[in-house]
């Protein structure tokens, strides 16, 4: 896997792209390549991260404008081919807006922008994104969002539960998310969207390493 390259997408307004690249290159020795949102050539990357931030200034709705970028248009084929896509925070919002994941992310219940460490239960091992060898494992990751309240209709929620698509649930719900949902996968398991930031938990010196496993799992086939 020496040549395995993770594409880190850069939209106008992305602000976690360099953090993701630092975590992958500096902590995990995984090669990365920045992908400008106007590019639709994904031929030389093996996995993709949609990083956090405020793509297009969060205009209209978070992730709503990013959905129409050439890169997101090209993502459909990439996902269908089984390659892995990780959407973090604004990346998760883009994945729901563009229909790769069900539901939507709306304003936090208490209207606060929440910047905190949260404890999360790993609910599903689908896609191998988390290291849950134990029956019920808990990890701690930072969150930083104003619009992270996951919402979906009851039928979609049932489908998420029945098909084990809920990856992470907050132990103590910070934002009013339905069913305490913090992250979900698609049915195949190769797309993960989550509000917490694994790239900000990759070194003890900044408070923890619980995010390493998820980033490392980008190189799974």
């Amino acid at each position, binding site marked *: 896997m020496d040549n395995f390259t993770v594409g880190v997408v850069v939209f106008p307004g992305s602000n976690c792209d360099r953090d993701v690249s630092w975590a992958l290159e500096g902590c995990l020795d995984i090669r990365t390549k920045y992908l400008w949102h106007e590019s639709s050539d994904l031929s030389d990357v093996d996995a993709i991260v949609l990083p956090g931030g405020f793509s297009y200034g969060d205009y*209209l709705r978070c992730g*709503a404008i990013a959905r129409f970028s050439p890169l997101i248009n090209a993502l459909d084929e990439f996902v269908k081919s089984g390659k892995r896509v990780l959407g973090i925070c604004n990346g998760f919002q883009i994945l729901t*807006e563009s229909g790769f994941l069900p*539901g939507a992310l709306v304003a936090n219940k208490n*209207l606060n922008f929440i910047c905190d460490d949260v404890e999360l239960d790993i609910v599903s091992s689908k896609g191998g994104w988390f290291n849950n060898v134990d029956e019920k494992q808990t990890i701690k990751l930072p969150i930083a969002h104003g619009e992270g309240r996951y*919402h979906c*209709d009851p039928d979609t929620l049932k489908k998420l539960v029945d098909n084990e698509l809920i990856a992470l649930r907050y132990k103590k719900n910070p934002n009013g998310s339905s069913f305490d949902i913090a992250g979900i996968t698609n049915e195949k398991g190769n797309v993960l969207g989550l509000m917490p930031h694994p790239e900000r938990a990759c070194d003890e010196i900044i408070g923890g390493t619980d995010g390493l496993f998820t980033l490392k799992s980008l190189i799974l086939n």
Partner: protein
Amino acid sequence: MDQFAVKVFVRLRPSVLDPAGEATKSASIKLGAEGIKSLRIGKMIEVKIEGNGENEVREKIDLLCDRLFANTVIEDYEYSLEKL
């Protein structure tokens, strides 16, 4: 070509909690306004658009509302249309 002025209203679905609406309701009560039973905040989008007649313009606006202006997972929309 006819020109139309369209006003699109986008609202959170009734089942979706509107914390900004709740906060504004609370402030309205603090201002002394009485009798407010509910307050919800939406968006209004004004579009000037050309097309061959009302039907064609409605088709375009339907597409815009459904695919861009509203996220139908959480929002409903309606619009009014006026020929200029």
